């Protein structure tokens, strides 16, 4: 009896899992499908599932804009922002996890609360700051803003991962003569590496897909892939074939990267078996 319930529960959960996965994946699937259609097929009703694939949209996209220029900007901005954010967040999370004070909890909540503000609320001040520091339309400027917007989440996530590391292991390091710095780099970091990797990965994905600040703070020189997509969405009306091709090109690298590192990501998110 118990076994039967278990199997039926498992089947149910499996169906639910697949359902959600398909639901989430469908828009991406449709986007990729549309990118291989001609513009006429792309807007035909009813939508066609089977058709003669064509690369014409891709050809036109490459002709009209320099994909590599945008892609390089995205890579620079996301990797840069993530690297700086993690470098700043590790010591912050270390002190919060292992040297907590009365105010630690409050600080963490306050940091997270900054994420609740809609970004547009600080658009004008940030824009003016960027302009006055000559960081408008530069990769540095965009990276700094991306880094700052993600920092609270990164600190919060690292804090959760660090809390899983048993304090006596770090104390053993200190008894063995490690300085705080050595304790952090030689004991804590290797232990929390899966967690740090998945945090960095999440930050990379968030930066890669970040559109609001990219569109507002860059125009040409530092414009990343989100701006590349946006450039296909306006003046002469919507061309779904080209738009889909541009979007597919923009998300493909991070999608592939995410796929490759999913093992790491899952390991990080279920981290805790370090005892």
């Amino acid at each position: 009896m118990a076994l039967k319930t278990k199997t039926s529960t498992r089947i149910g959960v499996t169906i639910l899992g697949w359902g959600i996965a398909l639901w989430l994946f469908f828009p991406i699937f449709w986007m990729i499908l549309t990118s291989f259609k001609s513009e006429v097929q792309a807007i035909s009703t009813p939508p066609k599932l089977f058709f003669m694939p064509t690369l014409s949209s891709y050809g036109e996209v490459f002709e009209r804009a320099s994909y590599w220029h945008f892609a390089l900007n995205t890579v620079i901005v996301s990797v840069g922002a993530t690297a700086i954010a993690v470098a700043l967040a590790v010591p912050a999370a270390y002190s919060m996890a292992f040297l907590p004070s009365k105010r630690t909890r409050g600080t963490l909540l306050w940091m997270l609360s900054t994420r609740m503000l809609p970004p547009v609320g600080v658009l004008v001040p940030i824009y003016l700051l960027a302009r006055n520091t000559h960081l408008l339309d530069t990769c540095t400027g965009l990276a700094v803003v991306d880094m700052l917007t993600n920092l609270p989440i990164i600190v919060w996530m690292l804090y959760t991962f660090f809390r899983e590391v048993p304090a006596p292991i770090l104390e053993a390091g200190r008894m063995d003569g490690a300085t705080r710095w050595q304790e952090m780099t030689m004991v804590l970091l290797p232990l929390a590496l899966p967690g740090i990797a998945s945090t960095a990965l999440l930050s990379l994905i968030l930066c890669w897909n970040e559109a609001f600040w990219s569109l507002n703070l860059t125009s040409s020189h530092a414009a990343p892939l989100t701006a590349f997509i946006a450039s296909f969405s306006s003046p002469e009306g919507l061309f779904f074939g080209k738009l889909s091709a541009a979007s597919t090109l923009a998300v493909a690298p991070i999608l592939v990267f995410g796929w490759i590192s999913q093992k790491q990501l899952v390991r990080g998110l279920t981290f805790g078996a370090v005892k």
Partner: protein
Amino acid sequence: MATVELKNLRKTYLTEEIIKGISLSIEEREFVVFVGPSGCGKSTLLRMIAGLEDITSGDLLIDGQRVNDVEPGKRGLAMVFQSYALYPHMDVYKNMEFGLKLAGMPEAERREKIEHVARTLQLEPYLHHKPGQLSGGQRQRVAIGRAIVRNPKVFLFDEPLSNLDAALRGQMRVELSALHRKLGATTIYVTHDQVEAMTMADKIVVLQKGVVEQIGSPLELYHHPRNLFVARFIGSPPMNFFPAIFQGGDSAGSSVQLRDGSILYVPVTSPGLLPGTKVTVGIRPEHVELASSGPNSGVVEVVERLGAITLVHVRMPDGEIIVVQTDGAVLTEVETRVSLTLPPRNCHLFAPDGLAFEACHRHPLAA
């Protein structure tokens, strides 16, 4: 080898004082055990000595040097944690090497030391295993090995055996004692296990609520507990207590009257105590004798037969339970009425404030 001296150590967390002025001196080569009920501050005190907790006030001296503000790694101590706290990402060899490497010891010397210690602790086959691949007992050995290789002046142990099963715990206890004899290093050991404390310690420190209740050799604590708390805490099963009325005393003993009217003449001195004062008579289960008739009778409620010995739980008329430890072959059965004989030479007497009266004769093993 080193001496450790605690001078009026105190620790306050926020507003609560956890360690309330502890003074203690530990000799070279001495094996000192801290015991006490859960939450009494044993671990905190040990961690203060280790340098993992700040000392709020007082002085800590190692080899006569004040080390309050010295980093944990520079105090010349090694600690073995209850949870072992091995570095999970390093194999056994690297676990032991870590501290030596940080201290800048040359590679060849490190190797030699680690191999020597691994041989002593029978860890050779596991040198390249990660902690996750070891059993609890093996991990414990690695933790001890990691402490030994550093050649510390003082070993600190915080309940190192409490995660092991009973058989292994017994074995490790013997091994640790042998190791201590061999290395001769000063050792401070925290436990709440009676047997560990009694068998391993040169000196036991009984703590309660952040204060020292008594310091002494295991048998001193057993034969001459300073107060009711220590009397109850040391010994298993714990000491029995009978309320009594003080009748009078002289230089050879004091006489008290028990609830049932019988008079006991206990060989303890009771200077200045007024007749009529309420006192407490204490006697260990192994010293109470069973009789079929006589004073102090009660009803047998439980008989625990452990093989070699039997524990007889007797409910007295006032509702108290008295435990008697007797022969394994005793025929006593539950629900029967028995009498208890209390040999006066084995009785302790406690004043109303809980302090023990001094025995007229010290036990020869507890001089």
